[in-house]
Protein backbone atom coordinates (compact mmCIF):
# COMPACT_ATOMS: atom_id res chain seq x y z
CA UNK A 1 0.00 0.00 0.00
CA UNK A 2 1.34 3.42 -0.93
CA UNK A 3 1.45 5.89 1.92
CA UNK A 4 2.94 9.34 2.28
CA UNK A 5 5.42 8.87 5.09
CA UNK A 6 8.13 10.80 6.83
CA UNK A 7 11.54 9.10 6.50
CA UNK A 8 11.52 8.42 10.24
CA UNK A 9 8.18 6.67 9.96
CA UNK A 10 9.36 4.59 7.02
CA UNK A 11 11.82 3.14 9.54
CA UNK A 12 9.29 2.72 12.34
CA UNK A 13 6.87 0.98 9.97
CA UNK A 14 9.60 -1.48 9.02
CA UNK A 15 10.41 -2.13 12.67
CA UNK A 16 6.73 -2.74 13.41
CA UNK A 17 6.45 -5.27 10.59
CA UNK A 18 9.73 -6.92 11.56
CA UNK A 19 7.97 -7.94 14.79
CA UNK A 20 10.73 -6.63 17.00
CA UNK A 21 10.28 -7.80 20.59
CA UNK A 22 12.31 -5.31 22.63
CA UNK A 23 13.29 -1.73 21.91
CA UNK A 24 14.99 0.87 23.98
CA UNK A 25 15.93 4.46 23.22
CA UNK A 26 16.58 7.91 24.60
CA UNK A 27 15.15 10.85 22.66
CA UNK A 28 17.39 12.99 20.48
CA UNK A 29 16.55 15.19 17.52
CA UNK A 30 16.24 14.24 14.64
CA UNK A 31 15.78 10.60 15.56
CA UNK A 32 12.93 11.02 18.04
CA UNK A 33 10.05 10.52 15.60
CA UNK A 34 11.19 6.96 14.93
CA UNK A 35 10.96 5.83 18.53
CA UNK A 36 7.94 7.96 19.37
CA UNK A 37 5.92 6.03 16.80
CA UNK A 38 7.29 2.74 18.10
CA UNK A 39 6.59 3.48 21.75
CA UNK A 40 3.02 4.29 20.76
CA UNK A 41 2.76 0.94 18.91
CA UNK A 42 4.01 -0.87 22.00
CA UNK A 43 1.66 0.98 24.29
CA UNK A 44 -1.50 0.56 22.20
CA UNK A 45 -0.88 -3.09 21.43
CA UNK A 46 -0.20 -2.65 17.70
CA UNK A 47 3.10 -4.39 18.41
CA UNK A 48 3.56 -7.24 20.83
CA UNK A 49 6.74 -5.69 22.10
CA UNK A 50 8.37 -3.93 25.04
CA UNK A 51 9.71 -0.41 24.78
CA UNK A 52 12.20 0.49 27.50
CA UNK A 53 12.55 4.23 28.19
CA UNK A 54 15.97 4.70 29.70
CA UNK A 55 18.04 7.57 31.05
CA UNK A 56 20.64 7.83 28.27
CA UNK A 57 21.76 6.30 24.99
CA UNK A 58 24.45 4.39 26.84
CA UNK A 59 21.71 2.67 28.82
CA UNK A 60 19.59 2.21 25.69
CA UNK A 61 22.26 0.19 23.94
CA UNK A 62 23.03 -1.71 27.15
CA UNK A 63 19.33 -2.59 27.51
CA UNK A 64 19.14 -3.75 23.91
CA UNK A 65 22.27 -5.87 24.35
CA UNK A 66 20.69 -7.42 27.43
CA UNK A 67 17.48 -8.14 25.53
CA UNK A 68 19.33 -9.57 22.51
CA UNK A 69 21.24 -11.84 24.88
CA UNK A 70 17.86 -13.30 25.73
CA UNK A 71 17.49 -14.28 22.09
CA UNK A 72 14.83 -11.84 20.90
CA UNK A 73 14.74 -9.37 18.02
CA UNK A 74 15.83 -5.89 19.14
CA UNK A 75 15.99 -2.35 17.83
CA UNK A 76 17.17 1.08 18.88
CA UNK A 77 17.70 4.43 17.20
CA UNK A 78 19.90 7.40 17.86
CA UNK A 79 21.85 10.27 16.38
CA UNK A 80 24.97 12.38 16.86
CA UNK A 81 25.88 12.79 20.55
CA UNK A 82 23.65 9.87 21.39
CA UNK A 83 25.69 7.63 19.09
CA UNK A 84 28.93 9.03 20.47
CA UNK A 85 27.77 8.23 23.98
CA UNK A 86 26.98 4.66 22.89
CA UNK A 87 30.48 4.11 21.55
CA UNK A 88 31.61 1.72 24.30
CA UNK A 89 28.52 -0.43 23.83
CA UNK A 90 28.84 -0.46 20.04
CA UNK A 91 32.07 -2.41 20.38
CA UNK A 92 30.36 -4.65 22.88
CA UNK A 93 27.34 -5.44 20.72
CA UNK A 94 29.43 -6.57 17.76
CA UNK A 95 31.99 -8.53 19.75
CA UNK A 96 29.15 -10.26 21.61
CA UNK A 97 27.88 -11.19 18.10
CA UNK A 98 24.37 -9.90 18.73
CA UNK A 99 22.17 -9.18 15.68
CA UNK A 100 20.91 -5.78 16.89
CA UNK A 101 19.50 -3.30 14.38
CA UNK A 102 19.84 0.43 14.94
CA UNK A 103 18.62 3.39 12.91
CA UNK A 104 21.13 6.21 13.08
CA UNK A 105 20.17 9.64 11.81
CA UNK A 106 23.27 11.47 10.62
CA UNK A 107 23.60 14.70 12.61
CA UNK A 108 26.49 17.01 13.39
CA UNK A 109 28.48 16.83 16.63
CA UNK A 110 29.15 19.86 18.88
CA UNK A 111 30.35 22.19 20.04
CA UNK A 112 28.84 24.60 17.81
CA UNK A 113 25.53 22.89 18.68
CA UNK A 114 23.95 21.82 15.44
CA UNK A 115 21.10 19.40 14.86
CA UNK A 116 21.50 19.17 11.09
CA UNK A 117 22.91 16.73 8.58
CA UNK A 118 26.53 15.60 8.83
CA UNK A 119 27.97 12.10 8.47
CA UNK A 120 30.89 12.33 10.87
CA UNK A 121 28.90 10.76 13.74
CA UNK A 122 28.31 7.40 12.06
CA UNK A 123 31.60 7.30 10.16
CA UNK A 124 33.51 7.89 13.39
CA UNK A 125 32.08 4.52 14.52
CA UNK A 126 33.59 2.67 11.59
CA UNK A 127 35.88 0.51 13.74
CA UNK A 128 33.21 -0.71 16.15
CA UNK A 129 32.23 -3.80 14.16
CA UNK A 130 28.83 -2.67 12.90
CA UNK A 131 27.60 -3.21 9.38
CA UNK A 132 26.68 0.24 8.02
CA UNK A 133 24.10 0.85 5.28
CA UNK A 134 23.34 4.37 3.98
CA UNK A 135 19.90 5.22 2.54
CA UNK A 136 18.86 7.62 -0.18
CA UNK A 137 15.09 7.96 0.30
CA UNK A 138 12.13 6.84 2.37
CA UNK A 139 11.55 3.64 0.42
CA UNK A 140 15.14 2.63 0.78
CA UNK A 141 15.01 3.40 4.51
CA UNK A 142 12.01 1.11 4.95
CA UNK A 143 13.40 -1.67 2.79
CA UNK A 144 16.89 -1.48 4.27
CA UNK A 145 15.53 -1.67 7.81
CA UNK A 146 13.67 -4.86 6.94
CA UNK A 147 16.74 -6.27 5.21
CA UNK A 148 18.92 -5.28 8.15
CA UNK A 149 17.21 -7.77 10.47
CA UNK A 150 17.65 -10.66 8.08
CA UNK A 151 21.25 -9.73 7.36
CA UNK A 152 22.16 -9.20 11.02
CA UNK A 153 20.63 -12.53 11.98
CA UNK A 154 22.39 -14.36 9.13
CA UNK A 155 25.87 -13.29 10.24
CA UNK A 156 25.27 -12.51 13.94
CA UNK A 157 26.52 -8.97 13.62
CA UNK A 158 24.76 -5.68 14.40
CA UNK A 159 23.56 -3.42 11.58
CA UNK A 160 23.30 0.37 11.51
CA UNK A 161 20.80 1.79 9.02
CA UNK A 162 21.87 5.35 8.34
CA UNK A 163 19.59 8.23 7.31
CA UNK A 164 20.33 11.90 6.59
CA UNK A 165 19.01 14.29 9.22
CA UNK A 166 15.92 16.17 8.02
CA UNK A 167 16.62 15.68 4.29
CA UNK A 168 15.45 12.13 4.86
CA UNK A 169 14.30 11.78 8.47
CA UNK A 170 11.76 14.60 8.25
CA UNK A 171 10.84 14.58 4.56
CA UNK A 172 7.50 13.15 3.47
CA UNK A 173 7.55 10.94 0.41
CA UNK A 174 5.29 8.31 -1.11
CA UNK A 175 6.48 4.98 0.26
CA UNK A 176 5.21 1.52 -0.54
CA UNK A 177 4.39 -0.04 2.82
CA UNK A 178 4.20 -3.81 2.35
CA UNK A 179 1.60 -5.91 4.08
CA UNK A 180 2.50 -7.98 7.10
CA UNK A 181 2.06 -11.33 5.35
CA UNK A 182 4.63 -10.37 2.70
CA UNK A 183 7.07 -9.21 5.34
CA UNK A 184 6.58 -12.45 7.26
CA UNK A 185 7.49 -14.37 4.13
CA UNK A 186 10.69 -12.39 3.79
CA UNK A 187 11.63 -12.25 7.46
CA UNK A 188 11.07 -15.44 9.44
CA UNK A 189 11.04 -15.28 13.26
CA UNK A 190 14.47 -14.99 14.82
CA UNK A 191 16.11 -18.30 15.53
CA UNK A 192 18.88 -17.10 17.81
CA UNK A 193 22.24 -18.79 17.87
CA UNK A 194 23.18 -16.93 21.01
CA UNK A 195 20.70 -16.78 23.86
CA UNK A 196 20.30 -17.26 27.54
CA UNK A 197 18.41 -20.47 27.93
CA UNK A 198 16.30 -21.26 31.01
CA UNK A 199 17.40 -24.88 30.79
CA UNK A 200 21.05 -24.50 29.95
CA UNK A 201 23.35 -22.33 32.05
CA UNK A 202 25.99 -20.43 30.14
CA UNK A 203 28.44 -17.60 30.84
CA UNK A 204 28.47 -14.71 28.41
CA UNK A 205 31.24 -12.21 27.78
CA UNK A 206 33.76 -13.77 30.10
CA UNK A 207 37.39 -12.78 30.50
CA UNK A 208 39.38 -13.49 27.32
CA UNK A 209 43.13 -13.82 27.98
CA UNK A 210 45.77 -13.34 25.25
CA UNK A 211 45.49 -17.01 24.27
CA UNK A 212 41.97 -16.59 22.86
CA UNK A 213 41.32 -12.88 22.32
CA UNK A 214 42.97 -12.65 18.94
CA UNK A 215 41.03 -15.62 17.57
CA UNK A 216 37.80 -14.05 18.77
CA UNK A 217 38.64 -10.89 16.84
CA UNK A 218 39.56 -12.90 13.79
CA UNK A 219 36.18 -14.63 14.04
CA UNK A 220 34.37 -11.29 13.95
CA UNK A 221 36.25 -10.46 10.78
CA UNK A 222 35.27 -13.85 9.37
CA UNK A 223 31.70 -12.84 10.08
CA UNK A 224 32.29 -9.64 8.11
CA UNK A 225 33.73 -11.64 5.25
CA UNK A 226 30.43 -13.49 5.07
CA UNK A 227 28.44 -10.26 4.79
CA UNK A 228 28.69 -9.74 1.00
CA UNK A 229 27.26 -13.23 0.39
CA UNK A 230 24.62 -12.85 3.09
CA UNK A 231 23.65 -9.43 1.78
CA UNK A 232 23.27 -10.78 -1.76
CA UNK A 233 21.11 -13.61 -0.41
CA UNK A 234 19.03 -11.10 1.61
CA UNK A 235 18.54 -8.90 -1.43
CA UNK A 236 17.57 -11.87 -3.59
CA UNK A 237 14.98 -12.99 -1.04
CA UNK A 238 13.73 -9.41 -0.76
CA UNK A 239 13.43 -9.09 -4.54
CA UNK A 240 11.48 -12.36 -4.65
CA UNK A 241 8.84 -10.95 -2.35
CA UNK A 242 8.89 -7.25 -3.16
CA UNK A 243 10.53 -6.99 -6.57
CA UNK A 244 13.03 -4.35 -5.47
CA UNK A 245 16.72 -4.27 -4.68
CA UNK A 246 19.58 -1.85 -4.12
CA UNK A 247 22.92 -3.66 -4.11
CA UNK A 248 25.90 -2.67 -1.97
CA UNK A 249 26.27 0.23 -4.37
CA UNK A 250 24.64 1.50 -7.53
CA UNK A 251 26.56 2.59 -10.61
CA UNK A 252 24.67 5.18 -12.64
CA UNK A 253 25.93 5.84 -16.17
CA UNK A 254 29.38 4.61 -15.20
CA UNK A 255 30.14 2.28 -18.12
CA UNK A 256 31.70 4.86 -20.43
CA UNK A 257 32.17 7.58 -17.79
CA UNK A 258 35.49 9.41 -17.69
CA UNK A 259 34.68 11.06 -14.38
CA UNK A 260 32.67 9.32 -11.68
CA UNK A 261 31.13 11.18 -8.73
CA UNK A 262 30.86 9.14 -5.56
CA UNK A 263 27.84 10.10 -3.45
CA UNK A 264 25.98 8.79 -0.42
CA UNK A 265 22.59 9.27 1.22
CA UNK A 266 20.16 11.85 -0.13
CA UNK A 267 22.95 13.57 -2.08
CA UNK A 268 22.73 10.60 -4.45
CA UNK A 269 19.19 11.69 -5.30
CA UNK A 270 20.50 15.10 -6.30
CA UNK A 271 23.34 13.35 -8.11
CA UNK A 272 20.90 11.51 -10.41
CA UNK A 273 19.54 14.83 -11.63
CA UNK A 274 23.03 16.26 -12.13
CA UNK A 275 24.16 13.22 -14.12
CA UNK A 276 21.12 13.51 -16.41
CA UNK A 277 21.75 17.21 -16.99
CA UNK A 278 25.48 16.80 -17.64
CA UNK A 279 24.96 13.80 -19.90
CA UNK A 280 22.51 15.89 -21.92
CA UNK A 281 25.34 18.36 -22.43
CA UNK A 282 27.51 15.49 -23.67
CA UNK A 283 29.68 15.18 -20.55
CA UNK A 284 31.00 11.69 -19.91
CA UNK A 285 30.10 11.55 -16.26
CA UNK A 286 28.69 8.87 -14.00
CA UNK A 287 27.73 8.43 -10.39
CA UNK A 288 28.51 5.75 -7.88
CA UNK A 289 26.04 5.69 -5.03
CA UNK A 290 27.64 3.94 -2.11
CA UNK A 291 25.21 2.15 0.19
CA UNK A 292 27.34 -0.28 2.18
CA UNK A 293 30.21 1.27 4.10
CA UNK A 294 31.03 -1.61 6.45
CA UNK A 295 32.14 -4.02 5.30
CA UNK A 296 33.73 -1.78 2.68
CA UNK A 297 32.91 -3.23 -0.76
CA UNK A 298 36.47 -3.10 -2.09
CA UNK A 299 35.98 -5.50 -5.01
CA UNK A 300 32.95 -3.65 -6.37
CA UNK A 301 34.64 -0.27 -5.87
CA UNK A 302 37.61 -1.41 -7.92
CA UNK A 303 35.46 -2.80 -10.68
CA UNK A 304 33.34 0.36 -11.05
CA UNK A 305 35.92 3.06 -10.38
CA UNK A 306 39.03 1.35 -11.73
CA UNK A 307 38.03 2.11 -15.33
CA UNK A 308 37.39 5.83 -14.84
CA UNK A 309 39.91 8.56 -15.58
CA UNK A 310 38.99 10.56 -12.49
CA UNK A 311 37.02 9.92 -9.34
CA UNK A 312 35.40 12.75 -7.35
CA UNK A 313 34.22 11.84 -3.85
CA UNK A 314 31.80 14.11 -2.04
CA UNK A 315 32.19 13.77 1.71
CA UNK A 316 29.67 15.30 4.11
CA UNK A 317 32.02 14.45 6.93
CA UNK A 318 35.63 15.05 7.84
CA UNK A 319 38.45 13.29 9.64
CA UNK A 320 40.58 16.09 11.09
CA UNK A 321 44.22 15.87 10.18
CA UNK A 322 43.36 13.60 7.25
CA UNK A 323 40.52 14.03 4.74
CA UNK A 324 36.94 13.14 3.98
CA UNK A 325 36.31 9.60 5.22
CA UNK A 326 34.73 8.10 2.11
CA UNK A 327 37.58 9.52 0.01
CA UNK A 328 40.14 7.97 2.36
CA UNK A 329 38.54 4.57 2.12
CA UNK A 330 38.16 4.74 -1.65
CA UNK A 331 41.81 5.73 -2.13
CA UNK A 332 42.83 2.78 0.04
CA UNK A 333 40.52 0.42 -1.85
CA UNK A 334 41.91 1.45 -5.23
CA UNK A 335 45.56 1.37 -4.22
CA UNK A 336 46.07 -2.39 -4.53
CA UNK A 337 43.84 -2.66 -7.59
CA UNK A 338 45.14 -2.85 -11.16
CA UNK A 339 44.32 0.72 -12.05
CA UNK A 340 43.98 3.70 -9.79
CA UNK A 341 42.50 6.86 -11.18
CA UNK A 342 43.24 9.99 -9.14
CA UNK A 343 40.74 10.51 -6.33
CA UNK A 344 39.58 14.12 -5.91
CA UNK A 345 38.19 14.66 -2.43
CA UNK A 346 35.54 17.33 -1.80
CA UNK A 347 34.06 18.38 1.52
CA UNK A 348 30.54 19.76 1.24
CA UNK A 349 27.32 20.07 3.17
CA UNK A 350 28.63 19.85 6.75
CA UNK A 351 26.26 20.75 9.59
CA UNK A 352 23.17 20.85 7.39
CA UNK A 353 24.46 23.01 4.57
CA UNK A 354 22.60 21.96 1.46
CA UNK A 355 24.36 19.99 -1.28
CA UNK A 356 22.55 21.33 -4.30
CA UNK A 357 22.64 20.62 -8.02
CA UNK A 358 24.95 23.64 -8.28
CA UNK A 359 27.30 22.23 -5.66
CA UNK A 360 27.64 18.95 -7.53
CA UNK A 361 28.05 20.62 -10.92
CA UNK A 362 30.77 22.86 -9.48
CA UNK A 363 32.51 19.79 -8.09
CA UNK A 364 32.28 18.05 -11.44
CA UNK A 365 33.72 21.04 -13.33
CA UNK A 366 36.51 21.52 -10.82
CA UNK A 367 37.45 17.88 -11.29
CA UNK A 368 37.27 18.02 -15.06
CA UNK A 369 39.53 21.07 -15.23
CA UNK A 370 42.42 19.58 -13.27
CA UNK A 371 44.79 16.76 -14.16
CA UNK A 372 45.50 15.87 -10.55
CA UNK A 373 43.93 16.85 -7.24
CA UNK A 374 45.24 20.12 -5.81
CA UNK A 375 44.78 18.80 -2.25
CA UNK A 376 43.49 15.70 -0.48
CA UNK A 377 40.32 17.65 0.32
CA UNK A 378 38.85 20.74 -1.28
CA UNK A 379 36.19 22.47 0.82
CA UNK A 380 33.30 23.54 -1.36
CA UNK A 381 30.76 26.27 -0.64
CA UNK A 382 32.50 27.95 2.30
CA UNK A 383 31.17 31.36 3.30
Amino acid sequence: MKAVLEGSHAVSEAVRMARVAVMSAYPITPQTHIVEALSEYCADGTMDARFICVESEHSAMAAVIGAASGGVRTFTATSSHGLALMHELLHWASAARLPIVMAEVNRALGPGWNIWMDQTDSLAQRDTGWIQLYCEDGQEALDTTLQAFRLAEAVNLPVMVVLDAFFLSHTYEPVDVPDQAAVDRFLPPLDPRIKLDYGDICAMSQMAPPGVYMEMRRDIQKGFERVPGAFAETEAAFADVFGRGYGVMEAVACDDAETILVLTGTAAGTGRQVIDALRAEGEKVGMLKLKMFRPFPVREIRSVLGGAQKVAVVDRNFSFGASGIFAQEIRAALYNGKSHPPVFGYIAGLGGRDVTVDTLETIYRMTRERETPEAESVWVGLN
Partner: protein
Amino acid sequence: MAIRDFLRERFFPHMWCPGCGHGIVLNNMLRAIQTLGMSKNEIAMVSGIGCSSRISGYVDFHTLHTIHGRALAFATGLKMSMPELNVIVPMGDGDALSIGGNHFIHACRRNIAMTALVMNNRIYGMTGGQFSPLSGYGTLATTAPYTNIDHGFDVVDLAISAGATFVARTTTYHAKQMADIIREAIIHDGFSVVEIMTQCPTYFGRKNKLGDASNMMEWMKDITTPVGSKAKEENPDLIERGIFVQKELPEYCSEYNKVIERAMKGRS
Protein backbone atom coordinates in the same frame (compact mmCIF):
# COMPACT_ATOMS: atom_id res chain seq x y z
CA MET B 1 24.03 47.30 37.31
CA ALA B 2 20.69 47.23 35.52
CA ILE B 3 19.20 43.79 34.83
CA ARG B 4 19.31 44.49 31.10
CA ASP B 5 23.09 44.73 31.28
CA PHE B 6 23.16 41.07 32.27
CA LEU B 7 21.34 40.05 29.10
CA ARG B 8 22.74 39.28 25.68
CA GLU B 9 20.02 41.12 23.89
CA ARG B 10 21.43 40.21 20.52
CA PHE B 11 20.15 36.66 21.10
CA PHE B 12 16.58 37.79 21.68
CA PRO B 13 13.78 37.01 21.08
CA HIS B 14 14.40 33.86 23.11
CA MET B 15 13.37 30.41 21.87
CA TRP B 16 11.02 29.54 24.74
CA CYS B 17 7.33 29.00 24.11
CA PRO B 18 4.86 31.60 25.35
CA GLY B 19 4.18 30.90 29.01
CA CYS B 20 7.25 28.72 29.54
CA GLY B 21 8.51 29.03 33.11
CA HIS B 22 12.16 29.11 32.10
CA GLY B 23 11.92 32.87 31.44
CA ILE B 24 10.69 33.46 34.99
CA VAL B 25 13.74 31.60 36.28
CA LEU B 26 16.01 33.76 34.12
CA ASN B 27 14.36 36.90 35.44
CA ASN B 28 14.61 35.99 39.12
CA MET B 29 18.08 34.56 38.87
CA LEU B 30 19.23 37.89 37.44
CA ARG B 31 17.42 39.78 40.20
CA ALA B 32 19.23 37.65 42.77
CA ILE B 33 22.57 38.30 41.12
CA GLN B 34 21.83 42.01 40.94
CA THR B 35 21.31 42.22 44.70
CA LEU B 36 24.68 40.55 45.23
CA GLY B 37 26.41 43.37 43.40
CA MET B 38 28.71 41.00 41.50
CA SER B 39 30.33 42.05 38.29
CA LYS B 40 29.59 40.03 35.18
CA ASN B 41 33.18 38.86 35.05
CA GLU B 42 32.94 37.10 38.41
CA ILE B 43 30.21 34.76 37.23
CA ALA B 44 30.39 31.70 35.04
CA MET B 45 27.33 29.86 33.87
CA VAL B 46 27.70 26.28 32.70
CA SER B 47 24.68 24.58 31.16
CA GLY B 48 23.97 21.31 29.38
CA ILE B 49 21.31 20.82 26.71
CA GLY B 50 17.57 21.35 26.90
CA CYS B 51 15.17 24.29 26.69
CA SER B 52 16.28 25.18 30.22
CA SER B 53 19.96 25.05 29.31
CA ARG B 54 19.42 27.69 26.63
CA ILE B 55 19.43 30.15 29.53
CA SER B 56 23.22 30.35 29.26
CA GLY B 57 22.87 31.81 25.77
CA TYR B 58 20.89 34.77 27.08
CA VAL B 59 23.08 35.97 29.97
CA ASP B 60 26.17 38.06 29.48
CA PHE B 61 28.42 36.17 31.94
CA HIS B 62 31.21 33.76 31.08
CA THR B 63 29.09 30.98 29.61
CA LEU B 64 29.73 27.40 28.59
CA HIS B 65 26.90 25.65 26.76
CA THR B 66 28.01 22.03 27.11
CA ILE B 67 26.79 18.47 26.57
CA HIS B 68 23.43 17.03 27.62
CA GLY B 69 23.77 15.78 31.18
CA ARG B 70 27.40 16.78 31.68
CA ALA B 71 27.15 20.39 32.82
CA LEU B 72 28.18 19.61 36.40
CA ALA B 73 31.24 17.67 35.26
CA PHE B 74 32.34 20.56 33.02
CA ALA B 75 31.58 23.00 35.84
CA THR B 76 33.69 21.00 38.29
CA GLY B 77 36.66 21.26 35.96
CA LEU B 78 36.11 24.97 35.48
CA LYS B 79 35.78 25.63 39.20
CA MET B 80 38.99 23.70 39.94
CA SER B 81 40.93 25.72 37.38
CA MET B 82 39.36 29.09 38.27
CA PRO B 83 38.14 28.75 41.87
CA GLU B 84 37.44 32.45 42.24
CA LEU B 85 34.55 32.26 39.77
CA ASN B 86 30.97 31.99 41.03
CA VAL B 87 29.71 29.03 39.05
CA ILE B 88 26.00 28.66 38.34
CA VAL B 89 24.72 25.52 36.64
CA PRO B 90 21.13 25.64 35.35
CA MET B 91 19.80 22.26 34.27
CA GLY B 92 16.54 20.70 33.14
CA ASP B 93 15.19 17.77 35.13
CA GLY B 94 16.22 15.42 32.34
CA ASP B 95 19.62 16.99 32.02
CA ALA B 96 20.28 16.91 35.77
CA LEU B 97 18.71 13.64 36.81
CA SER B 98 18.30 11.41 33.80
CA ILE B 99 21.39 11.38 31.63
CA GLY B 100 23.28 13.50 34.19
CA GLY B 101 22.10 11.74 37.36
CA ASN B 102 25.48 10.28 38.15
CA HIS B 103 27.25 13.64 37.94
CA PHE B 104 24.53 15.16 40.10
CA ILE B 105 24.96 12.83 43.07
CA HIS B 106 28.74 13.01 42.91
CA ALA B 107 28.77 16.80 42.78
CA CYS B 108 26.52 16.84 45.87
CA ARG B 109 28.82 14.44 47.67
CA ARG B 110 31.93 16.43 46.84
CA ASN B 111 30.54 19.70 48.21
CA ILE B 112 32.25 21.84 45.61
CA ALA B 113 31.12 25.47 45.71
CA MET B 114 28.66 26.02 42.90
CA THR B 115 24.95 26.53 42.46
CA ALA B 116 22.90 23.88 40.68
CA LEU B 117 19.49 25.11 39.55
CA VAL B 118 17.22 22.22 38.62
CA MET B 119 14.52 23.73 36.43
CA ASN B 120 11.98 21.00 36.95
CA ASN B 121 9.16 21.00 34.41
CA ARG B 122 8.77 17.22 34.80
CA ILE B 123 9.30 16.52 31.11
CA TYR B 124 11.85 16.60 28.28
CA GLY B 125 10.68 19.83 26.68
CA MET B 126 13.26 20.24 23.98
CA THR B 127 12.84 16.82 22.38
CA GLY B 128 9.05 16.85 22.37
CA GLY B 129 7.56 15.89 25.72
CA GLN B 130 8.93 12.49 26.66
CA PHE B 131 8.63 11.62 30.36
CA SER B 132 11.58 12.33 32.61
CA PRO B 133 12.69 10.84 35.94
CA LEU B 134 10.66 13.62 37.56
CA SER B 135 7.40 13.19 35.66
CA GLY B 136 6.13 10.87 38.35
CA TYR B 137 3.91 7.83 38.44
CA GLY B 138 0.61 8.19 36.62
CA THR B 139 1.49 11.23 34.50
CA LEU B 140 1.12 11.42 30.73
CA ALA B 141 3.87 12.09 28.19
CA THR B 142 4.56 11.36 24.53
CA THR B 143 6.41 8.22 25.63
CA ALA B 144 3.74 7.37 28.21
CA PRO B 145 0.46 7.78 26.32
CA TYR B 146 -1.30 5.41 28.73
CA THR B 147 0.33 6.81 31.90
CA ASN B 148 3.82 6.58 33.22
CA ILE B 149 4.73 3.65 35.44
CA ASP B 150 8.17 5.01 36.44
CA HIS B 151 8.36 6.53 39.89
CA GLY B 152 9.93 9.97 40.15
CA PHE B 153 12.88 11.17 42.16
CA ASP B 154 12.41 13.75 44.88
CA VAL B 155 15.19 16.20 43.98
CA VAL B 156 15.36 17.60 47.49
CA ASP B 157 15.58 14.21 49.23
CA LEU B 158 18.10 13.01 46.68
CA ALA B 159 20.32 16.06 47.06
CA ILE B 160 20.18 15.86 50.85
CA SER B 161 21.07 12.20 51.00
CA ALA B 162 23.84 12.68 48.43
CA GLY B 163 25.37 15.29 50.72
CA ALA B 164 24.58 18.72 49.28
CA THR B 165 25.06 21.38 51.95
CA PHE B 166 22.41 23.79 50.66
CA VAL B 167 19.13 22.35 49.44
CA ALA B 168 16.00 24.31 48.61
CA ARG B 169 12.83 24.19 46.54
CA THR B 170 10.70 26.92 45.06
CA THR B 171 8.35 27.47 42.13
CA THR B 172 7.84 29.96 39.32
CA TYR B 173 4.69 31.15 41.09
CA HIS B 174 6.76 32.22 44.10
CA ALA B 175 9.00 34.58 42.17
CA LYS B 176 10.14 36.64 45.14
CA GLN B 177 11.01 33.53 47.14
CA MET B 178 12.85 32.16 44.11
CA ALA B 179 15.09 35.24 43.88
CA ASP B 180 15.80 35.13 47.64
CA ILE B 181 16.66 31.44 47.59
CA ILE B 182 18.90 31.72 44.54
CA ARG B 183 20.72 34.57 46.27
CA GLU B 184 21.33 32.43 49.37
CA ALA B 185 22.39 29.51 47.20
CA ILE B 186 24.99 31.58 45.37
CA ILE B 187 26.45 32.97 48.60
CA HIS B 188 26.64 29.50 50.16
CA ASP B 189 30.19 28.13 50.32
CA GLY B 190 29.54 24.56 49.17
CA PHE B 191 27.35 22.69 46.73
CA SER B 192 23.88 24.26 46.53
CA VAL B 193 20.87 22.67 44.90
CA VAL B 194 17.76 24.67 44.16
CA GLU B 195 14.86 22.80 42.66
CA ILE B 196 12.62 25.23 40.80
CA MET B 197 9.25 23.76 39.88
CA THR B 198 8.43 25.34 36.55
CA GLN B 199 5.80 24.95 33.86
CA CYS B 200 6.08 23.51 30.38
CA PRO B 201 2.61 24.36 29.08
CA THR B 202 3.51 22.99 25.65
CA TYR B 203 4.08 19.40 26.75
CA PHE B 204 3.57 18.64 30.43
CA GLY B 205 0.63 21.01 30.69
CA ARG B 206 -1.06 19.93 27.49
CA LYS B 207 -0.52 16.19 27.98
CA ASN B 208 -1.75 16.29 31.56
CA LYS B 209 -4.64 18.69 30.91
CA LEU B 210 -3.38 21.28 33.36
CA GLY B 211 -4.55 24.27 31.37
CA ASP B 212 -2.43 27.19 30.28
CA ALA B 213 0.68 28.62 31.89
CA SER B 214 -1.21 30.68 34.45
CA ASN B 215 -3.37 27.67 35.42
CA MET B 216 -0.19 25.67 35.88
CA MET B 217 1.32 28.36 38.09
CA GLU B 218 -1.83 28.50 40.20
CA TRP B 219 -1.62 24.74 40.46
CA MET B 220 1.95 24.97 41.74
CA LYS B 221 0.76 27.46 44.32
CA ASP B 222 -1.97 25.03 45.40
CA ILE B 223 0.17 21.91 45.66
CA THR B 224 3.02 23.49 47.62
CA THR B 225 3.37 24.84 51.13
CA PRO B 226 6.21 26.50 53.09
CA VAL B 227 8.62 24.11 54.84
CA GLY B 228 7.36 23.08 58.24
CA SER B 229 3.88 24.55 57.75
CA LYS B 230 0.84 23.27 59.55
CA ALA B 231 -0.85 22.70 56.21
CA LYS B 232 1.63 19.90 55.50
CA GLU B 233 0.63 18.13 58.70
CA GLU B 234 -2.97 18.25 57.61
CA ASN B 235 -2.29 17.32 53.99
CA PRO B 236 0.85 15.19 53.61
CA ASP B 237 0.55 15.32 49.79
CA LEU B 238 1.55 18.98 49.73
CA ILE B 239 5.07 19.61 48.45
CA GLU B 240 7.20 21.72 50.74
CA ARG B 241 9.11 24.70 49.45
CA GLY B 242 11.78 26.78 51.13
CA ILE B 243 15.26 25.96 52.43
CA PHE B 244 15.68 22.39 53.71
CA VAL B 245 19.41 22.28 54.40
CA GLN B 246 21.91 25.09 54.88
CA LYS B 247 25.00 23.88 56.67
CA GLU B 248 28.71 24.54 56.68
CA LEU B 249 30.97 21.65 55.74
CA PRO B 250 34.50 21.80 54.34
CA GLU B 251 34.33 22.99 50.73
CA TYR B 252 36.15 20.94 48.08
CA CYS B 253 38.44 23.60 46.55
CA SER B 254 39.59 24.81 50.00
CA GLU B 255 40.13 21.25 51.16
CA TYR B 256 42.15 20.57 48.07
CA ASN B 257 44.43 23.51 48.89
CA LYS B 258 44.92 22.09 52.38
CA VAL B 259 45.97 18.75 50.90
CA ILE B 260 48.56 20.54 48.80
CA GLU B 261 49.84 22.37 51.88
CA ARG B 262 50.09 19.11 53.82
CA ALA B 263 51.90 17.41 50.99
CA MET B 264 54.33 20.30 50.63
CA LYS B 265 54.99 20.30 54.40
CA GLY B 266 55.61 24.02 54.42
CA ARG B 267 57.85 24.01 51.33
CA SER B 268 56.75 26.24 48.52
